[in-house]
């Protein structure tokens, strides 16, 4: 069970500023919740390495290999010569390879997205529904009341319209 301080902001700039301040004050990385993506988060909260592109690449390579092996392998498993062509015909099999490359690329991208974005959310996480509409929310984990008070102050200073204490159930 963890308590969080959640500051609700009108605009992204102030929320971002608050998050920056919190981070500077030694809090574990505060989270920003917003109805739209906010630009410049990385400058404030630091670079985020995405693994998605690796996944996409791996998926593509895997898919391509699978596609060609699928086409060529099944052709060899039960021989049905057609049209005076070889059993392993390159151009048509390349098309299958191509499609499989893309299919696996897509699937792995999604997988990468889920993993890196930590979706779907199994464990209960703090959330303020306002952030889906038009509010910008900064949450930060607070170990005890004192931490909370400090955080509240920082948030209010940054222009939070409201600061709430929310609890994340285990």
């Amino acid at each position, binding site marked *: 069970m963890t308590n969080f301080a959640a500051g609700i902001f009108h605009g992204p700039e102030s929320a971002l500023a608050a998050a920056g301040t919190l981070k500077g004050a030694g809090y574990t990385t505060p989270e920003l919740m917003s109805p739209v993506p906010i630009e410049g988060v990385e400058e404030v909260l630091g670079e985020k390495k995405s693994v998605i592109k690796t996944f996409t690449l791996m998926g593509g390579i895997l898919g391509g290999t699978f596609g060609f092996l699928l086409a060529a392998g099944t052709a060899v498993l039960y021989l049905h010569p057609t049209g005076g062509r070889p059993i392993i015909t390159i151009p048509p099999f390349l098309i299958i390879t191509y499609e499989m490359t893309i299919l696996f690329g897509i699937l792995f991208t999604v997988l990468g997205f889920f993993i890196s974005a930590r979706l*779907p*959310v199994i464990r*209960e996480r703090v959330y*303020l529904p306002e952030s889906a509409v038009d509010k910008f929310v900064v949450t930060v984990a607070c170990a005890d009341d004192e931490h909370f008070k400090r955080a509240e102050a920082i948030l209010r200073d940054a222009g939070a319209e409201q600061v709430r204490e*929310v609890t994340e159930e285990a």
Partner: protein
Amino acid sequence: MNVSIVPALKALIPAALVVAVVLLGLVVGFWANAAFYPGTSPEQPIAFSHKIHAGENEIPCMYCHTQARRSISAGVPSVSKCMGCHNEVATQRPQIRKLKNYWENKEPIPWIKVHDLPDFVHFTHKRHIAAGIECQTCHGPVETMDQIRLTDAAPMEMGLCLNCHKQKEVANGLDCWTCHK
């Protein structure tokens, strides 16, 4: 406020349970039909036992299924053939009386096909007998069966044919037109 998909998943459990039970039932029903009403071991007009004839008395298959070695079909013995023995043997048993009725009324016995291939499969007994294939390879251990049925060992499916043709490296044995024409 917190968010998680778990409560939503929990809310779905009753519905999922119903679906799962229906699917399970489907499988059970499907299986039950096959197990208890298979149509592959039907009640024959006369309860002829291969176990007695082929098993205990060791009558060779082709004594009755005379055509197997020269025709595409193995053939069933004519009533006269049955009567050939049963004029003398076991004449008083109820099943034999049935047989006698057919014979006296000059009616053929409407045996029901057990090893029934679809019409698009043209199997030839002759070639397989000539190649020395045991009857039991495809028909299962009929000499142990009181009532003829399909067995799992020989399910009479295409895979069975293909595997054997592959193993024995039958010339053109994998050409579809070998069986389907």
